[in-house]
């Protein structure tokens, strides 16, 4: 029990400290360090992909493969939930 409490405190301070240090070391809020990739999307989404919504053009085109993965994660969760409760729900 003592060891476990020590482990909990250690993880809290380690992870919390890392997080605070990282956030403290990040560039100031509202000033992107390098926005070339995003500026490309903003500039080209309409001409290249005929999409007014730049975010959607990224979600389904520029990074469409991520979205397939994301849909697969949701599908995985559905499959797991159905597998856990299989056999009981009719209809």
């Amino acid at each position, binding site marked *: 029990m003592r060891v476990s409490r020590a482990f909990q405190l250690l993880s809290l301070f380690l*992870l919390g400290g*890392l*997080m605070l*240090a*990282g956030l*403290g*070391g*990040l*560039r100031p809020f509202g000033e*992107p*360090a*390098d*926005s*070339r*990739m*995003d500026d*490309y*999307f903003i500039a080209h989404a309409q001409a290249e992909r005929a999409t007014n919504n730049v975010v959607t053009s990224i979600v389904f*085109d*520029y*990074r*469409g*493969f*991520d979205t*397939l*993965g*994301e849909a*697969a*994660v949701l*599908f*995985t*969760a559905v*499959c*797991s939930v*159905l*597998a*856990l409760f*299989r*056999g009981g729900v009719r209809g």
Partner: protein
Amino acid sequence: MRLDEHLPALLLALPLLGAFSAPLVGKGSRRWVELLLPVLSGLTFAVAAALLHRVSVGGTQLYVMGAERAGLALPSGMSLPIRIVLEVDALSALMAASGSLVAFACALFAVPYMRRFSGFDKFASLYFLLVAGMLGMEVTGDLFNFFVFLEIASVASYGLVAFWRDRPEAIEAGLKYTVVSTVAALMVLFAAGFLYGNHGVLNMAAIASRVDLGVADKVAMALLFGSLAMKAGAVPMHMWLPDAYGEAPSCVSALLVSVSQASLYGLFRTSFSLFGLPRVAPLLGWGLVVLGLLSMFVGVTMAIVQKEIKRLMAYHAISQTGYMLLGVGVGLVASLSPARMESFGLVAIGGALYHVINHAMYKGLLFLTAGAVYYSAGTRMLDQMGGLARNMPKTASLFALAAAAIAGLPPVNGFTSKLLIYQSSYALSPFLAAVGMITSVLTLASFVKIFQSAFLGPALPELSEVREVPAPMLAGMALLALAIAGLSLLPGPVLEHMVMPAARALADRGAYIAAVMGGGM
């Protein structure tokens, strides 16, 4: 349309197709799913093998998702990749081929093995998703995409570990695994966020070309290193692993070994390609070495006292992971000076990568034989087994082969890779090699004990009705045994054509970056 150009995409598209269509196919009859599972797994393996061949002939393959051409990483006027790039170098192709071979063998094994349970279409979906997640982690060149595939593999394995929901232990193992590994995956997401916030890109090669090791970079490095080491099951973050491996159905445990190795791959990429700058290379290298020593020793000592066969094998998996961490760590420490790299660094990395493939094969085979024993004898407790070799001679001989491999007995493949690791780590420090050898002896003792108590000796009266397992299960095990035999009989060609190119690809940080960024920055 030339198909061979699209191999990296097909490698991920095929298992996803299987996952999405399994519920539809399962509406017809279970028989169709039983056909779909091995056939698509086999096709995936064929694609992975073709990809391995293509990479070994033509060098690193790029695949830019959704671009005009597959190899067009940088659109005109841009010096940064903007799309998701799959970057398949020799290491990725090797890992993908070995992982998909294990997946194929386990799929063959799973068909009769899971016949006693309902929900096979859900099982097949989750299985395909686990394969897709594993392969995706190994071939992607994009940090956020890596996170997405990590999550696919994790969520699928949560569902599969808890698949036998009637056992409280399975639910408990699933819960522990879910909580721990969700937090780890969140850390990967935070790390991707830090790197994006600092550099404005998500492509791993592009990030690697701009890493400046400021505070945020270092934090991202620590988060990635810690969480991926945890997902790979390195001591002291291993507590979820024996539970998850022990409680999952055996065909899944065997595949989970390869899935953990995908995290290991991520750890190697993080240490070498992403952050392998001279300033932090010794730190990361010694970190890997320490994790490796701890895993080797703690894993094997915990394994000796276990009474459940799969739990015991799971602790051995931790201990074997230690060898890989040790080898790669030694290589990373040596990478500071070209002379040391040439004399033992590359050998260490090669040995570790060779051990990765060997381990995927023999540990997969061990878990499958444990599943076969469980299927026939109906028990997982070692003290309730005895004299099984009489009724299950084939399973017993396959088990003996895999046990010889994991213990590192001379003619079998585990020996070659361990020897390479001993040699090279001895060059760095004799202490490392000594720990490795002690671990190896303890492993041998442990497996001699299991073989003697479970398979030899007088047959227990309650086990006299035990029969050999059905043919597809034997076929799955035989496939892995063939792979072990191949790796044992041809160590030279395997090392020369598959493993050492992978080791060089891992060690060459510049080439990894240049493949995407086109050389000059």
